[in-house]
Every structure is written in C-alpha cells, then in structure tokens.
C-alpha cells in the first residue's frame, strides 16, 4: 500500500539523528512557550525564522511544526494549574481543568490532557498521511481561476469561523492584501508604493509584520494591564495517573474530541482554537444534566485538549497540499518554505517527498516526545510558571530584535518592526485581530498573480470565475459561509460560543 511505503519513507527521514534532535528542540520550545503566558507560537516561529537560513528545509520545518503542536501541550498545563491559558486554544481547558486542580485533582487533569492529546496527535498524523495525496491530486486539476477562488474561500473561511466582528476581520484581510501590494510588480517590474526606498521595493518582510503585531504589540498590551494575581497549585500535583472512573469518563470524550478536531482542522480558519471551543460545547451538550461542567468535569478537559491537538495536526493538510495556510501559524510555515526555496503547493509532495513525509512522520515522533516531556517532567514546567513577566518581556524583546536584524542583516527591518509594534498595539486597542491581516498579507502576491493570469487567459472576462464549475463551487461555498454566519440565529450562537475568549 502506498500509505505504508510513504510513511516508511517518512519515518526513515524522521528517525535520523539530526531530525530527531530538531523535532525535540521544537517540542521543547513549543512546550516552553505554551507554558509561558504572553508568548504564542506565531511570535516564536517568527522569531526563529531567521535562524533557519542555516538549516536544511526538512529539519527546519520539523522544528517549526514541533513548536506549534508543542504549544498545545504546554498551554494546557498553564490553564490547569493557574487558570491562565498559556495558549488561546487552552481557554476552555482552564474552565474545568482549574477547578479540578483546586479539588486536588490536578494530576488527573494533566494526565487526561496529555494522554488525550497524544491519542489525538497519532490519529491526526494518520489523517494527514491518508488525505494529503488525494487532495494533492485534486489540486493538480486547478487552474489560476480555481486557485483564486480557493484563496477567496480560504480567507473568508478563516474569519467566518474565528471570533470577533466579521466586518472588521474581512477589512483586516483586505488591509493585509493591500499591504502586500508594496513590492515590485512581477509582471511589469514597476516598483509600487516604495517611495524610492530601496528596501521597500522587495516588499515588507512578513516576519516584520508578524513580530511587530504578534510579538511587540502583545508585549505592550500585556504591560498595559494591571498585574494579575496568580494562584499556583504546585504542591498538589501528585497521583498523575487518573483513576479507573476518570478513564471511563474521559475516553469517549477523547474519541469525540479527536474526530471533531481532525474535521475542523482541515477547514480554512480551523485549527486548534476552533476545535477546542467546538469540542467543549459538544461535551457539555452531550453530558446534559449529569455533567459537572464548570465545576471540574474531566470530560471538559479531555475533549477540548484532544480536539485542539487533532486540529493543530490536520490544519497542516491545506498548507501541505494546496499551499493555502488556514491560520496564522501555517502562514508562517508557508513563509518558511519560501525562505528555503520551496514553492508551497501540490507539487511539494512529488518534488520533495523526503520533506513532505518526513514532516508528517516527525509529528508522530514529536507527539511521543511531548507526552514524555509533559507528564513525568511536569515539575520542571511548574517551576517555570513562577517566573515573573518582568523577567520575560525583556528577553522576548531582545530575541525579537535580534531575529529581525538577522533577517537581512539590515537595521531598516528593525525600524519597520518598531512601526508595526505601534500598529499592532493600535489594532489591539481598536479590537482588530492580527491573524486575518497576516493571512491576507501572505496570500496577497499569490492572489494577484492568479487573478491576473485568469483575466489574461479569459481575455478580461470576469465571468471566467463562475463559468468554470470548480471555481464557481468554491466561490459559492465562500458566499454561503458569509450568508450562514449573517443569519440572526447563527449570529447569536457565534457570539455566545466565543464569549469566553
């Protein structure tokens, strides 16, 4: 079977000493930033992008992927022990996990989260391996029209399923696409919006935007808030193994969470965050009156934690097969591939099978490492929780600064980042989300190229996008998504679902 030979190839790549080392480094870093509130995977991956110049593509991507799913594990630890979600996807875990910790069952909660995540991670890896090839086949049938429509669908999906105001999120996408127009036009060679600044003719580096908005913007926002009171349950963590009753209650939730997460991860805009919210809502509904949700129900930890890990894994599918990032982290992965000279898209699987299957296999290996890192070694992470933010933010600022400088060994990028730090804080204050902006910015050049190629092929006839059935289907799906979300009943539910965010 193809699947087996492909996975065998992947594991061959993943099990080389170098790749194991980078997978481990990624998982370790991911757990670290997951545990530390105030530093997310987007800022971390952006910070590390300059350092991958010296690496081969495969270990570099393996490490970056490890950071993303490692953060899902680490985020739950903070959520359970101090009621502060280390990662946005762990917001719902904090609800019941923290209550369990207060009842002295922190160990059981951590184990449910860790083992559930591991199971979900294994399933997620198999789902990617099974579904990537057929999707890739489909993608080869795509012309520029289909690609353009697919990007429209991807961008719309990304904001429809996310939280916050829809109108503002769509505006942020367009703003991202617009900022991406600061470059040299590929077809005519005209420098656009460069104001005769040579650095701007190559366009703004996406790392600069990611670091300014997600790194510095968030630091300023965090410092502007009054210091929070933290209650850490450090001594109570014993009896890691859940009781038989815990197991019986938790495993169906793990299965449901995994299934839901695998499904939602593939959708544009899906991934870890959406999956965990959806799973919590579902578990709460299914449990009905018998549930003790909000008072320390293990199902409220096991379900969402499995879901967010499954979602984190399967969100690699659209990125790997179509080159379309479904969320901000994947957008950075697309950027990382471009840095390494790999054009993201369906051809990656055939042109770089080592990278493709090695990355997938490394996710399973990484998940195994994470269980070991997170359960027996939990004590180390707990100690880290006591590090105050006033020691953290200077270090984060420093690493971001060095990261930006080393992008091109140019201090112009540093000044641009300072500007985007101000813009990022402005976005925060105005309630505008940064993720859609980054997605739009990354997809901007690709979208323009496909639009112009489509129009060229169709001799300027815009109807080409709706005449071709595949392209029309994608556009209809995008329109339907907006219509459904605008329906009053759905609108209300959407607001309720994200109220805890």
């Amino acid at each position, binding site marked *: 079977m193809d699947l087996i030979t492909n996975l065998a190839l992947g594991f061959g790549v993943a099990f080389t000493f170098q790749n194991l080392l980078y997978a481990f480094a990624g998982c370790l870093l991911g757990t670290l930033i997951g545990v530390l509130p105030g530093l997310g995977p987007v800022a971390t991956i952006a910070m590390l992008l*300059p*350092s991958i*110049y*010296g690496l081969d593509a495969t270990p570099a991507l393996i490490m970056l992927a490890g950071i993303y799913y490692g953060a899902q594990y680490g985020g739950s630890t903070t959520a359970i022990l101090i009621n502060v979600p280390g990662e946005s996807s762990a917001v719902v875990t904090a609800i019941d996990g923290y209550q369990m910790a207060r009842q002295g069952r922190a160990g059981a909660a951590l184990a449910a989260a860790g083992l559930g995540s591991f199971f979900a991670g294994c399933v997620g890896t198999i789902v990617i391996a099974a579904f990537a090839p057929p999707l890739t086949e489909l993608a080869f049938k795509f012309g520029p029209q289909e690609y353009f429509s697919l990007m429209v669908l991807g961008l719309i999906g990304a904001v429809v399923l996310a939280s916050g*105001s829809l*109108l*503002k999120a769509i*505006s942020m996408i*367009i*703003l991202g*696409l*617009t900022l991406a*127009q600061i470059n040299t*036009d590929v*077809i*005519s060679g*005209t420098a*656009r*919006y460069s104001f005769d600044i040579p650095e701007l003719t190559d366009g703004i580096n996406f790392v600069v935007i990611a670091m300014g908005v997600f790194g*510095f913007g968030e*630091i*300023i*926002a965090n*410092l*502007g808030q009054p*210091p929070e009171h933290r209650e850490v349950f450090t001594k109570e963590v014993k009896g890691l193994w859940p009781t038989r009753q815990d197991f019986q209650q938790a495993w169906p939730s793990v299965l449901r969470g995994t299934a839901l997460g695998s499904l939602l991860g593939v959708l544009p805009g899906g991934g870890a965050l959406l999956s965990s919210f959806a799973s919590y809502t579902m578990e709460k509904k299914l449990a009905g009156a018998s549930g003790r949700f909000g008072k320390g129900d293990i199902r409220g930890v096991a379900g969402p934690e499995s879901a967010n890990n499954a979602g984190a894994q399967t969100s690699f599918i659209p990125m790997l097969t179509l080159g379309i990032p479904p969320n901000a982290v994947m957008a950075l992965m697309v950027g990382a591939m471009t840095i390494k000279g790999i054009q993201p898209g369906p051809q990656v699987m055939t042109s770089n099978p080592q990278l493709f299957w090695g990355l997938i296999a490394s996710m399973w290996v990484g998940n195994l490492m994470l269980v070991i890192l997170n359960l027996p070694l939990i004590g180390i992470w707990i100690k880290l929780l006591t590090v105050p*933010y*006033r*020691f953290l*933010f*200077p*270090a984060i*600022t*420093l*690493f971001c*600064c*060095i990261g930006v*400088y*080393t992008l091109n*060994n140019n*201090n112009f990028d*540093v*000044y641009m*980042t*300072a500007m985007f*730090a*101000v813009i990022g*804080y*402005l976005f925060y*204050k*105005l*309630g505008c989300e940064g993720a859609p902006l980054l997605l739009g910015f990354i997809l901007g050049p690709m979208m*323009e190229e496909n*639009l*112009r190629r489509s*129009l*060229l092929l169709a*001799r*300027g*006839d815009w109807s080409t996008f709706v005449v071709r059935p595949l392209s029309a289907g994608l556009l209809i799906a995008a329109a339907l998504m907006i219509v459904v979300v605008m329906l009053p009943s759905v609108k209300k539910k959407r607001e309720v679902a994200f109220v805890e965010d």
Partner: protein
Amino acid sequence: MKIKSEKDFWSGIMFMVVGISFAVGATNYSMGTGARPGPGYFPLILSTILAILGAIILFKSLTIETEGGDRIGSIAWRPLLVIVSAIVIFGAMLPRLGLFITVPVLIVIVSFAGDEFKWRGVLIAAAALTVFSWLIFVVGLSLTIPLWPTFIQ
C-alpha cells in the same frame, strides 16, 4: 452625532484612510486593460473595497447602540514609548556598536517599561542575556552579527 462604538469608529477611519491613500497611490501606476491588467489594477480594487468597508464600519459605529460605548480605554503610553524607542535604539546601535554593548543597553531600557525596576535584577538579566544571545545566535547559529564597535575593529 454621537459615537456609539468608539473602537469601531476609529477602526472605520483607519480602514478608510489607508484605503483612500492606497487608491490615490494606485493611480500612479498603469491600470492596463481588462484583458491585460497592469500593476495598478489589483491595488486599486483592493483599496476601493477597503475604503468602502471602512465607511460601513464607520456608519455602523454611529448608528448601532453598543454596551458601554465600546470604549478604547486608556493607552499604555509608558510601555508603548519605552518598547518602541528601545527597538529603534537597538536598530541604530547594533551595526555600529556591536552586540556586547547594544544588548545590555536594550535590556536596561526595556526594563523601564514594567512597573518594577530594580537595578540589581536588571543588570544580572542584562549580563546573562548578553552571554546567552552570543552563545545562541553567534556561536550556535553562526549568524553574522557585529560583536564590537566598528571603530575598535
């Protein structure tokens, strides 16, 4: 006219300003024809949509009632100014004075952004982070970062 949502009001203004300025900028570039779109074609479409969306957000912020007026709240001037100027100073200093001088300066400046500032802790952190970043970025990842001031070398 009363502003019903302060956040949306200013968001709308922001999107409109950016949209209109990019649209004006786009007129400097060739539009091309429909069948052969030029470099100004896509930017003009995008910025027009952005300006329209901004106008809708602005209109909604003036008409639809929100709870508590959706206030922007106070601006954290101190962290904002300290962090941003620290980044700019870092950018100006690093190529000229090198890592071993720039990093401690950055850490000391940045530390003023927090509520607490204790010289002892800050200096220890500055020393530790300087050595750490040298080990990781220069020794470990062999990135080309100037280490000492240019006039010494």
